[in-house]
């Protein structure tokens, strides 16, 4: 997902004013992407949100010294959100990898059984199917737990009024830690 362009940035403008514009734009991206990720947690939606969270965190890495004190808290909150979304992503990758590997081995076995129609033992990968299906199931289940943690983490941020506090901090000084 391509980052939204931040309008009105100029090299000569004060760093604080530039940081405010960037933080507001990146925060708005997260707010735009979060509802889809929270609702169905489809892999594409959680992935896009993870990237948006990472972008805002990197902005805060570079600019938090010139923002209000809450920016440092925000950086830590975003790190935790990024970690749990990263776990969702790793599970998605492992489910896909297990299924792809199973399909590859299945195809090898079909080819071997065509070449040796009277020898079922030619399907030499058959013992791996069950374990690969288990790997896929295991990480699908872990993903469900990770999604639950992601939702809890997000709702905790909402209760804390994370967005409002970070917006205030991005204006410099305001936004209590």
């Amino acid at each position, binding site marked *: 997902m391509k*980052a939204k362009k931040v309008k009105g*940035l*100029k*090299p*000569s*403008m*004060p*760093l*604080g*004013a*530039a*940081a405010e514009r*960037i933080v507001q734009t990146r925060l708005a991206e997260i707010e735009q992407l979060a509802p889809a990720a929270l609702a169905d947690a489809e892999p594409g939606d959680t992935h896009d949100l993870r990237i948006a969270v990472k*972008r805002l965190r*990197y*902005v805060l*890495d*570079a*600019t938090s*010294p*010139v923002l209000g004190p809450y920016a440092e808290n925000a950086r830590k909150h975003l790190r935790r959100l990024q970690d749990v979304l990263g776990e969702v992503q*790793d599970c998605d*990758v*492992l489910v896909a*990898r*297990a299924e792809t*590997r*199973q399909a590859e*081995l299945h195809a090898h076995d079909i080819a071997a059984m065509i070449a040796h129609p009277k020898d079922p033992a030619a399907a030499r*990968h058959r*013992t*791996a*199917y*069950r*374990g*690969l*299906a*288990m*790997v896929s199931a*295991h*990480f699908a289940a872990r993903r469900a737990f990770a999604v639950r943690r992601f939702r809890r983490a997000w709702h905790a941020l909402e209760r804390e009024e994370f967005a409002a506090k970070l917006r205030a901090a991005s204006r*410099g000084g305001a936004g209590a830690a």
Partner: protein
Amino acid sequence: MAAPRPVPGLDPEEPFGSAAARVVTVRADELWTMAERVRRTGDPEAIHDMRVASRRLRASLEVFATCFPGQPRKAVLKDVKGLADALGARRDPDVLLEALAPLRESFGRQDQPGVTALTTALEAERDAGSSVVEAALAEADRTDLHGRIEELVRSVKG
């Protein structure tokens, strides 16, 4: 991975361009420090740290994009991204292998061939990833990425 190295003395009133030069300099220094560790040890943690450093540098080149001349910045950004991708080719299989490791204990004997089928493929990718990193570091040397980043910092606008 350690927290990002602080950029001393950033001031909200200083020009965005001057902050850009200082932030990118610190992030590039971090990257080259990590690169040295990767060359020296090839250690998986060094690979991870260098990847994080490459992402931070990439992010600062994006955050401060408007402060640098377009074409040289785009070329540097593309090469930093290439370096990050190469490090990912080495690091990503490690992350997946770490996640699979507990299944050696928790899954039954009948399921182990499936776990092995996946880990063997990932180990092959990880081994190939080491060559990808070596090639990317050699390419960064050949194209003087270090020098081009320094030049980019000197050409900052504002």
